[in-house]
């Protein structure tokens, strides 16, 4: 996550729909309720809407829901290990539990207050309110213990479970795919590349790979529509994904990734520039929403 997104901002966004505020146009029941009838429909007159685009959005909804099921399952395994006091197993399960979250972060982080509860980093929220993955991360890696983490583990499992429930009622618009795919890469450029996200466990490469996969999943749903308007763009974006994956590939270790500490400054820079080279053409994908 970047910073906790106050719900009010998300709601405002819904109100001034597509007015340049740049947040996804997520409509879920909860948001709709609290903003009365103004947000019932999200298609503004300028937005291209076609059965194909709607289909793409529906398909991505399924992807998001699938990832949420995975996350629920893996988080449960992780929190069980924490509660059982199994330090080594908890450390092993930490990064994989986060992967599904990182794939759909741009969407999931928009729902309710889950993002700060689940993914706040130290200093993002007042210390007495700080829980979630990163609080436990700190204890596992810095403290070297699961002691005292049971309550955070329980709360995390609960939050993830109820987030899964809410995601079921989510209705995505094509704009969410467009914005979300770029936003996931912006997550990498802004927060992950510096190693600040996983500052204790140094498992940043798990997050980065997952962010890129999530971005690609959204792009793939839109691809046929983009190809119709601008086939060159599809080529550029595909080349961009290939470049990022290739750059990442050298850091694979077993089923996972090397510690982010092993990447020299020049390695991080090379990776960052590959992400830029991808995000630039990808940011042109919004043309599929343009009428005409």
């Amino acid at each position, binding site marked *: 996550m970047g910073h906790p997104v106050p719900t009010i901002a998300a709601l405002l966004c819904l109100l*001034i729909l597509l007015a*340049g505020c740049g947040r996804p146009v997520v409509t879920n029941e909860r948001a709709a309720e609290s903003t009365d009838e103004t947000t019932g429909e999200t298609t503004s007159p*300028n937005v291209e809407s076609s059965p194909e685009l709607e289909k793409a959005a529906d398909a991505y909804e399924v992807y998001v829901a699938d990832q949420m099921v995975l996350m629920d399952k893996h988080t449960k395994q992780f929190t069980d290990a924490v509660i059982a006091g199994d330090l080594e197993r908890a450390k092993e399960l930490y990064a994989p539990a986060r992967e599904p979250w990182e794939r759909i972060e741009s969407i999931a982080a928009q729902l309710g207050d889950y993002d700060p509860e689940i993914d706040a980093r130290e200093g993002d929220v007042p210390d007495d309110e700080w829980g979630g993955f990163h609080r436990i991360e700190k204890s596992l890696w810095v403290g070297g213990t699961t002691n005292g983490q049971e309550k955070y583990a329980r709360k995390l499992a609960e939050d993830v479970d109820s987030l899964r429930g809410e995601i079921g009622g989510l209705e995505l618009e094509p704009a969410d795919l*467009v914005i979300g795919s770029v936003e996931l890469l912006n997550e990498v450029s802004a927060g992950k590349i510096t190693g600040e996200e996983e500052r204790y466990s140094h498992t940043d490469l798990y997050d980065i790979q997952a962010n890129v996969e999530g971005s690609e999943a959204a792009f793939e749903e839109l691809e046929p529509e983009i190809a119709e308007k601008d086939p060159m763009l599809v080529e550029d974006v595909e080349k961009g994904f290939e470049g990022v994956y290739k750059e990442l590939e050298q850091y694979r270790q077993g089923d996972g990734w090397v510690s982010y500490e092993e990447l020299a400054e020049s390695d991080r820079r090379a990776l960052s520039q590959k992400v830029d080279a991808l995000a630039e053409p990808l940011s042109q994908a919004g043309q599929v929403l343009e009428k005409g």
Partner: protein
Amino acid sequence: MGDGKISRRELLRLAGAGGAGLTLGAGGYAAIRGTADAAAVPGSSTVPFFGRNQGGIATTQQEHMHFAALDLITDDAAEVRDLFRAWTEAGARMAQGDPAGDENYSQFLPPEDTGEAFDLHPANLTLTFGIGPSIFEKDGEDSLGLAGTKPEALAPLPPLTGDVLDEARSDGDLCVQACADDPQVAFHAVRNLVRIARGIAVVRWSQLGFGRTASTSKTQSTPRNLMGLKDGTNNIKSEDTDLMGRFVWVPDGEGPSWMAGGTYLVARRIRMLIEVWDRVSLSEQETSIGRHKYSGAPIGKENEFAPVDLSAKDENGEPLIAEDAHVRLARQNEDERILRRGYSFTDGFDAERGQLDAGLFFISFQRDPLRQFVPLQQRLAANDRLNEYIRHTASALFAIPPGPREGGYVGEDLFRGI
């Protein structure tokens, strides 16, 4: 909206979509463009982008610079050619004070131009594009297939005495020098050109320069560098067209034809040991350079522009201009003259030493670096009294192709065969 005007329909659309900020920005911009009277509005004048030579060389030196060196991440020469085409197009627009690309008003796309120069004047923006030795050969390989066209004059600079160079801030496959009288205009140009290059080239290093350290025209006064010395007094001035022809421009028939009308750029990031210099007596400061600090006149003279007489002696028969003075060593050989066009820089504070990290970002243009810059610098590096107060920390060399013709692009003759 290439003409810088916004139609009413677009305005309405913008207002409807809540893009008021953008409307204001673009409107302000259009207003300025519409009423621009080059003579009346300071900063509103422009420098021609097309012509026999690229801008930013003979151009009356602007106050600010942003320099970027880039490395290619492709080995497809056609992509590099297309990059130069795109750069030329965007460069020509920005030199006119127009945005880098046609504005789009889509709410779903990032704006074509990043926008920070919308309400600013063109400020005499020039863009100077260059090509480094490494595009012809990198790690022993000619991956672009251009080696046959490499000019001899673009041989990498030999190791020079005293150099302790930071590789990460040296060299590069390509360069862009943006000069303008407004720092934000220069920054904006580099930012947008780098953005256009994404996927083809990445920034290797960049340098901001905040005050010119030379004058390149007789109409300009001489500025001072960060040592407090007038710098540029005896520079080649663009009005001296025969000196420009003799020392700066590559003539037809010298080297590959794609360089005719071009030149070579040497950049040296020279850190000044400011704290040390500031503790040095006025007399030692003046002796080191060979000129008086306040007037800029040669030692023993009163007028800044009085000729430098290297044989002049004081009453004891000692040379007025010391044997190791900078200007003596710098002008010893009439065949090694160069056009200096550098800028002061600071990169803030050097935490390791607890000192200012500042100095002179030296840029010179010459027809043949190996016959001008190299022997000149070798002599300076060996004996210059100034060396106690400076360190060369980075170095780069680029071929600067001739200016683009209207409808053409920079480097056209190099990439023609592709």
